[in-house]
């Protein structure tokens, strides 16, 4: 009898599960109501022109993002960190997209441009009075001074400390004392163990202070142009710090119950691994207030998954892989596709210590064997743009492809150059290894390159696909021959993709480019006191780097394809700044359109 009951229970269990599935499947379908929005997602709409916005109770969006590692702007490393931090925090200046697509640092918490001492080393910034944090506390100059010190604090070990360090150690603005403070723990080979008092003394010795509640004074080691100063002081490393909160809660200060913010949003909920929810910061008056009542950032690592979630109307904005870009005529998703310009140039990097690749004509032959138009169309659905340049489109100093036509696709010249290098029709050319990250798009590009080199030069390469960390380790240890790499722009200044990458002995110069003419131009650009001279020097450095193929063979400027629901307004291209999340550089611009 007992067994009979168990058997019935089993059957009932099966039936219950079937019913559960059926009931669930037939549940409320309101969430799936298709939007009746007008306009296209790609239309650039300013935050102030939102007369078509839906009522406040409908202003809720869910967007896809990778999960941030840290929410503290002085510890951020990855795009997804910075993207969310930009919603929560803002600095003295704000990178703002211009009508030409470029991004300029406009005053936000600063009352205007800085005043500069006669020697170009002391910058004084007045801060707008009466501005508040999300908890109602006043925003003060001291908090900005603390923010700069946090950016150099070795306890934070910020990967972006270099923004505040001197040119001598590979830095940018060179705040007095930052080099010493940030290196207080020494190096692996020469570690140091400073006492707390010594660390405090190093922080106090930094050249940044609040003259009064609304006046910040920053003293630099070397003279600097105003534009470069404003660029760096619009970035996360210089955002203000609330040391009262940090000291009270320690590393937990960014938890939702403790965090305070001075950006357009505040954090209301955080579920690690799942999502973070933001709400408007009612005290944010430095810039345009957000129209959204809530912004849920759903952590989805796989862009293909994000694309399917978007199609199921569960995500309003998502990044998608190049391979998922809707290109077929009649595909409804084409109307919801938005391709941001990316700040990333992708290249084949060549190890110049390798005797074969050290030959100029070999590198030129490889470059001339790549049909970049075809490659970008085939491997990225034309999301990326063919590139011969190194300074990306939208960046001051960008020269376009024209000056670099000598390295462009030309199979006849490619063959000739390879022959001139001693390998007629590829004879005697050793098989080279191309190291790539094991992702679908990089595999597609590698396969294309392999075929192009075989078809046009009759040479063979082998592809070595590894995970991200292994790839980086191989690159940093210079253990590669060919390598799909590149540079992702950190901030819109032509020095960013050049300093440290092409100067002899530069920290990121793992292809061993060493050319006195390039070194001289980099030195000239770094020391220039006007922005125009600064840009010109780096343009000339770029010309030398590309025409000599000094470690890099550029082939594409990547794009960032997103799907944006038609109901979303205010989504703007973000200029040259690569963002880990969709349009995160102006989240306050987003709104839900009426009738959605």
């Amino acid at each position: 009898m007992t067994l009979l009951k168990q058997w019935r229970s089993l059957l009932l269990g099966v039936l219950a599960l079937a019913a559960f599935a059926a009931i669930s499947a037939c549940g409320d379908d309101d969430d799936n109501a298709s939007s009746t929005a007008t306009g296209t997602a790609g239309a650039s709409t300013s935050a102030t022109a939102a007369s078509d916005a839906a009522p406040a109770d409908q202003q809720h969006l869910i967007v896809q993002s990778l999960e941030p590692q840290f929410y503290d702007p002085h510890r951020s490393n990855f795009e997804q960190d910075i993207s969310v931090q930009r919603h929560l925090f803002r600095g003295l200046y704000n990178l703002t997209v211009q009508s030409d697509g470029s991004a300029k640092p406009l005053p936000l918490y600063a009352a205007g441009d800085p005043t500069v001492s006669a020697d170009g080393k002391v910058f004084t910034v007045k801060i707008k009075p009466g501005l508040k944090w999300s908890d109602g506390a006043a925003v003060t100059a001291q908090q900005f001074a603390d923010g700069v010190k946090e950016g150099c604090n070795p306890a934070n070990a910020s990967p972006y400390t270099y923004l505040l360090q001197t040119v001598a150690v590979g830095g940018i603005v060179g705040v007095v004392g930052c080099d010493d403070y940030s290196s207080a723990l020494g190096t692996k080979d020469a570690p140091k163990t400073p006492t707390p008092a010594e660390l405090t003394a190093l922080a106090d010795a930094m050249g940044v202070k609040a003259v009064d509640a609304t006046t910040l004074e920053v003293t630099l080691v070397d003279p600097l142009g105003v534009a470069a100063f404003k660029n760096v002081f619009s970035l996360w490393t210089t955002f203000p710090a609330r040391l009262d909160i940090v000291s009270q809660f320690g590393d937990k200060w960014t938890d939702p119950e403790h965090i305070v913010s001075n950006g357009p949003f505040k954090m209301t909920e955080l579920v690690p691994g799942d999502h973070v929810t933001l709400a408007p910061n009612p005290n944010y008056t430095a810039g345009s207030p957000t129209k959204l009542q809530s912004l849920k950032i759903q952590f989805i690592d796989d862009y293909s998954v994000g694309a399917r979630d978007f199609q199921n109307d569960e995500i309003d904005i998502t990044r998608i892989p190049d391979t998922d870009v809707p290109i077929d005529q009649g595909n409804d998703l084409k109307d919801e596709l938005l391709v941001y310009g990316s700040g990333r140039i992708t290249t084949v990097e060549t190890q110049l210590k390798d005797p074969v690749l050290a030959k100029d004509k070999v590198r030129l032959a490889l470059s001339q064997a790549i049909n970049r138009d075809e490659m970008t169309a085939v491997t990225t659905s034309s999301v990326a743009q063919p590139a011969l340049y190194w300074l990306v489109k939208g960046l001051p100093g960008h020269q376009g492809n024209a000056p670099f036509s000598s390295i462009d696709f030309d199979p006849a010249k490619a063959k000739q150059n390879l022959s001139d290098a001693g390998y007629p029709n590829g004879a005697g050319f050793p098989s080279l290894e191309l190291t790539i990250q094991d992702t679908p798009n990089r595999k597609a590009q590698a396969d294309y390159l392999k075929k192009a080199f075989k078809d046009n030069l009759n040479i063979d390469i082998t592809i070595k696909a590894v995970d991200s960390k292994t790839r980086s380790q191989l690159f940093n240890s210079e253990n590669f021959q060919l390598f799909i790499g590149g540079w992702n722009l950190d901030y819109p200044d032509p020095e960013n993709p050049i300093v440290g990458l092409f100067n002899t002995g530069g920290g990121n110069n793992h292809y061993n480019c060493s050319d006195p003419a390039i070194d001289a131009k980099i030195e000239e650009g770094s020391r220039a006191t006007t922005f125009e001279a600064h840009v010109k020097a780096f343009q000339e450095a770029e010309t030398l780097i590309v025409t000599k193929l000094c470690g890099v063979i550029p082939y594409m400027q990547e794009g960032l394809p997103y799907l944006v629901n038609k109901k979303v307004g205010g989504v703007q291209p973000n200029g040259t700044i690569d963002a880990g999340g969709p349009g995160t550089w102006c989240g306050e611009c987003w709104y839900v359109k009426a009738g959605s």
Partner: protein
Amino acid sequence: MTGYIIRRILWIIPVLWAVATITFFLMHAVPGGPFTQDKALPDPILQALNHRYHLDQPLWRQYLSYLWDLGHLDLGLSFKGDRDVSYLIQHGFFVTAQLGLLSFCVAMAWGLFLGVISALNKNGPLDYLGVLFATVGASVPNFIAGTFLVIVFAVELHWFKIVGWGGPIDWSDTFTASAWEPRKMVLPVIALSLLPSAYIARIMRASMLEVLNQDYIRTARAKGLANNVVILRHAIKNSLIPVLTVMGPIFAYLVTGSFIIENIFSIPGIGGAFVDAVQARDYGMIMGTTLFYAAVVAFANLAVDVLYATVDPRIRYG
């Protein structure tokens, strides 16, 4: 039996130590560290990061420190957000366990049902259908099954939701009605239970056919027992022993092998966190999740061995 269980539990300790040791040194042997990236960090910043996480100490000292902390049930910090590994495992496993348990129940119910029906209709249409399901279920990887279900039942038909988990993510929300959203649970559970249900169906069918040919079944029928009673009282119970054998590994598979399904459905479980940790060289999280998985497998096998003795009176542990 109690003595046997205690001995088995004590044996788990050296097993976990061995797993911890092998994982620790393998983890440090693979190329790339947690702070390895293309844009190489300056030496002082790298040193500061290593100092923060005690990676500036010699490897043997890191190992001993880890064992010491482990002995005090301290799994350390994840490099991702400086959160306690034990906190992340607890939260992740709470979600993964829901997914795994539901899938286990579905797999058992559906697999046993199909196996029994197939056996009772040997070489009939229902048998062929059951065998077809078992073959397809065993052949189709769950990432294909999951993606297929998403495209058909979510993207095309919009029947189900596919972002996140439909159960509570925190223990404290277990009895909060709004934390439950069954529409999000159906597809991941089906996708995850497909393979084990096919496996169970196959085993149950074979076992049932064997039992149905046993003398005691023939005897029961000869004595005039109704067919239903013969099947329910004698055949099914005795056919379950081979299924019990695989229940432990299946349970372990369901609660440790769900990372692909978690990825497809953006479920914040421990499987996805483990894969992320390996890719990011998040040492604390790798160690914590590996040890946790090892413990789950060890205890699942122990539970099955105990179940043997419960179901089959011939089995006795000394």
